[in-house]
């Protein structure tokens, strides 16, 4: 996928002007957070489960090499194959090779964010293999030559009309604006693809070391058809997805659906443990798992290690005011929202992704809903420091911060300056008390008025309070 992350500011500003997108994002805000809140209220142990999930993930990361080795030996014992991919290129090549070995022409795909990360679809197409996305949202996007804007609701940026238009163009059927009819249409068209495919590619939510199983968790059932019908099933997943036992997987299962869609449980939780067994009448004859690294192994032991706990539930973006305002595409690469702001600079480089950790109001909502308690604001702050120390921030931001630092170290000057600035801003704002435009603050004031400072500066107030005996 093309990287558009450096253009975050411009894309965000376009997104805010895009009426259709704003309408579509309204659906998100009205949906997921409320559903999650209800699901959480029905599970009194939810906070304790989060603590346990955090601790278990930390234990897994501390022993990641050992659990991966165990997983590999169990998959092999079950008759499957494990492949290790250091980079996206490695992963794509491994998958192409498997496809070539079985003379594959068409490939069906269940939803996989790791495959978005590696750019698998483009790579297969360039090499003469047609991948067909089968998740309804992903299928819509493929018809529109579009990319996911959300990790579990990929087409959340589209409205009914967009889908209706795309289907009409591609399916040769009368145009409909009934979501039920559209879904039935996709069901019928894709059924033929499921049956015809030579290879089925899915992701995995977890890999169980104890049994050598991968699990997919879906509502549609497309992943199950993708992995059951073709002769070859390839799982593309990443190294941090391994869990020790079935019981450990279950801890995360209880958190995932509730945090993601607010469901009590997702419709299909399917474990795959190798190729078809003696006497089986269906199921794949070949079973491959591609374990993708792509920078993750370097996060172990780094200040970003906590991010490896992520179970890709999407709660952080569903609750993020910035994501809710600008949508996933503004982030310019595969992973949007707070988790994307932490992961993207790691995966595409701070030079290209460094803008993202600034796309936050640091309100802390993301951390408060994260099922594995990742301190997302803290991790974004790490990146900001990194970016600043590498001199990668735009001039206005650098000079602004440098100026502030200069003043902050000189209390007398600071006081004079803030008092002056305060006075200046109040007069700039006029009677309304709102600043509609201010030099260098366009990114802020184009979208909301900045409240002009009222009354005293913090230092003035602090002094007075101290004088009055320090009470409130």
């Amino acid at each position: 996928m093309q990287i558009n992350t450096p253009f975050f500011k411009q894309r965000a500003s376009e997104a805010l002007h895009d009426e259709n997108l704003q309408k579509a994002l309204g659906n998100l805000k009205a949906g997921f957070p409320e559903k999650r809140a209800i699901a959480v209220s029905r599970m009194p142990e939810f906070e304790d489960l989060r603590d346990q999930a955090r601790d278990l993930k930390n234990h897994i990361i501390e022993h990641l090499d050992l659990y991966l080795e165990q997983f590999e030996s169990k998959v092999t014992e079950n008759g499957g194959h494990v492949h290790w991919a250091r980079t996206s290129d490695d992963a794509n090549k491994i998958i192409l090779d498997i496809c070539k070995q079985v003379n594959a022409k068409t490939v069906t795909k269940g939803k996989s964010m790791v495959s978005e990360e590696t750019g698998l679809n483009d790579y297969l197409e360039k090499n003469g293999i047609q991948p067909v996305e089968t998740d309804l949202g992903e299928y819509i996007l493929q018809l529109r030559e579009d990319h996911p804007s959300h990790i579990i609701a990929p087409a959340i940026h589209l409205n009914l009309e967009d889908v209706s238009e795309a289907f009409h163009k591609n399916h040769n059927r009368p145009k409909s604006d009934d979501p039920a009819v559209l879904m039935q249409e996709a069901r019928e068209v894709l059924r033929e693809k499921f049956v015809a495919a030579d290879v089925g590619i899915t992701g995995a939510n977890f890999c169980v070391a104890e049994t050598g199983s991968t699990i997919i968790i879906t509502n549609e059932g497309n992943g199950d058809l993708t992995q059951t019908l073709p002769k070859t099933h390839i799982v593309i997943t990443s190294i941090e997805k391994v869990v020790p036992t079935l019981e450990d997987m279950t801890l995360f299962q209880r958190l995932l659906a509730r945090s993601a869609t607010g469901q009590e449980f997702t419709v299909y939780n399917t474990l795959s443990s190798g190729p078809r067994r003696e006497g089986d009448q269906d199921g794949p004859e070949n079973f491959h798992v591609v374990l993708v690294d792509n920078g993750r192994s370097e996060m172990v032991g780094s200040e970003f290690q906590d991010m490896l706990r992520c179970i890709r539930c999407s709660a952080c973006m569903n609750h993020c005011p910035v994501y809710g305002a600008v949508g996933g595409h503004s982030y310019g690469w595969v992973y949007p929202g707070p988790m994307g702001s932490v992961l993207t600079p790691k995966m595409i480089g701070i030079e290209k992704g460094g803008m993202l950790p600034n796309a936050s109001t640091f309100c802390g909502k993301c951390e408060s809903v994260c099922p594995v308690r990742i301190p997302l604001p803290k991790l974004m702050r790490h990146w900001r420091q990194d970016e600043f120390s590498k001199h990668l921030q735009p001039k206005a931001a650098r000079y602004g911060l440098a100026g502030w630092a200069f003043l902050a170290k000189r209390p007398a000057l600071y006081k004079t300056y803030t008092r002056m600035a305060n006075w200046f801003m109040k007069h700039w704002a006029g009677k309304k008390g709102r600043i509609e435009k201010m030099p260098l603050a366009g990114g802020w004031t184009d979208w909301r008025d900045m409240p002009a400072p009222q009354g005293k500066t913090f230092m003035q107030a602090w002094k007075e309070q101290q004088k009055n005996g320090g009470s409130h």
Partner: protein
Amino acid sequence: MSREEILNNIRRGVKRNTADDTARQTVLNRLSAKADNLIPARAQLPQQEQIALFIEMANEAAAEIIELDSISEVPSASAKWLRDRGIFELVTSSTAKVDALDWSPLAEKDIQRSQRVAQAGDFASLTDSFAGIAETGTLMLHSSPQSPTTLNFLPDNHLVILSRSAIVGVYEEAWKKIRAQFGATLPRTVNMITGPSRSADIEQRLQMGAHGPKTLVIFLIND
């Protein structure tokens, strides 16, 4: 080699070398203990209440529950259900339980039964199940030569037999049951199914019947 590079990176990150026996022992202990994590109180109930909870949660997930006094009523109940919907074919699994039934009620209503893998265009399938999990109204099924997985996903309607005695409270109990039967090697696939297929990918509006079955019928047997 990718494999060694990845593993070495991790070992460097956790400041440990391969030969560290304590870490290895910790991992082996966890894998063999298969200990439970926190189990929510919700489904830790007497069996009768677990059954009631299963029914409530399965209904909430939009599964249709038909209670039957005996498994011998499954063929006639299936015949009625299919006939009411104008369906004249049923593909069934061939497990001992399913095969032992007298299927003549289907023929009496001109419904044809076959035993094979599912094909695109099949209207209805019937399979047995391994367990019901009360906590979320979830069915557990597994693949076998007698019960092909396509039966659970390809047909438009999926009818499932579940004995009351096969209902457990929580997922953990189902894992213990699976291990008791299969030991260290799981069946090729284990399916946990909670209601019929659905999608909200168009404008976040929930539609039932995406790619999997549009209806899920559970024949709950009083045994």
